[in-house]
């Protein structure tokens, strides 16, 4: 499959529809806010990092579905994906090692001198970032097919 065939994704039948675009424009802020809410307040209510991250990722996928995955791939720097992934896992790992250096076991968050809920919220945000990036990345990468095709932005 050639790249020209693939990069014509912007003209796919379901991409240009005004209905999809308007729906995506209207819904995305609410979906994003709901995802952030789920990740931050999952400590006290149903929800949590995995749910919140997936909802945030779904918001990005919705935008990609409405406006085309190819423009989206050009907007988002590929390094941003790797940076977010490593940042999320690194934050969780750092919090875990912090418990060790504060005198507890590795990943023991109860030894921190602040309220556990804040540490848990930090970890939740880290998890949500990783999940959101993976969900968004899967859709964006898969829609591009195999190979970079030499188009490195």
């Amino acid at each position, binding site marked *: *499959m050639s790249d020209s065939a693939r990069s014509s994704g912007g003209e*796919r039948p379901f991409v240009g529809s005004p209905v999809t675009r308007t729906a995506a424009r209207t819904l995305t802020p609410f979906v994003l806010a709901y995802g952030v809410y*789920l990740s931050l307040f*999952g*400590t*006290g*209510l*149903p*929800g*949590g*990092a*995995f*749910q919140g991250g*997936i*909802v945030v*990722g*779904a918001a990005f*996928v*919705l935008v990609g*579905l409405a406006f085309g*995955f190819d423009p989206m791939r050009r907007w988002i*720097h*590929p*390094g941003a*994906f*790797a940076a977010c*992934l490593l940042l*999320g*896992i690194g934050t*969780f*790992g750092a919090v*875990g090692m912090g418990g060790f250096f504060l005198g507890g076991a*590795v*990943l023991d*968050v*109860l030894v921190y001198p602040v*309220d*556990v*809920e804040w540490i*848990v919220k930090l*970890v*939740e945000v880290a*998890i949500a970032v*990783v*999940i959101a*990036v*993976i*969900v968004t*990345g*899967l*859709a964006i*990468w*898969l*829609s*591009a*097919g*195999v*190979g*970079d095709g030499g188009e*490195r932005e």
Partner: protein
Amino acid sequence: MIWLELGLVAFVLAAAVLIALSRDVVGATVTFAAFSLGLAVVWVLLAAPDVALVEAAVGAGVMSVLLLVAVIETDCLQSDDDEEGERRFRPVNWPLVAVLSVLALPFGWTTLSLPPFGSPDAPAVRETYPDGGLTPYGYYIEATLVDAGFSNAVVAVLVVFRGLDTFGELVVAFAAAASVLVVLDRTVIP
């Protein structure tokens, strides 16, 4: 209420059969989204909002988009064989149904031996064993409020008490994303 639940189960079952038998790939994908949404409502009725959120977002949202992307990328939109283009459904594969029944019947039989839904005596929601010891349920409900200080026991177990499992889960997800990148031969680190 029971009619709502029965109707939902009937809807989910009908959607599942339609997905399996439909020749129209895009139609089956959209039906799959409806199937997941019905299942999500079933989870809500079973008092599992966490699972319902994931089912709705992943099953109905992201999975359908990934399936659509796969359909478009593999160019199997015109996969219908033209010689029997009139028929909208595949013939039922009875040997496969027999094999799956061998799997499904024991599972279905097992559900009959479960305690009734919402039963306060169910082993999964008892706080103590008959001999007085704390069950995992009792221990974590207790420990969540005392040690963690917030109310969602699922999050407390995930991050506070079983952090290693969650961290491993996250690393597995990271490895999966890296594998996808390797298989697709893409570079994300410039």
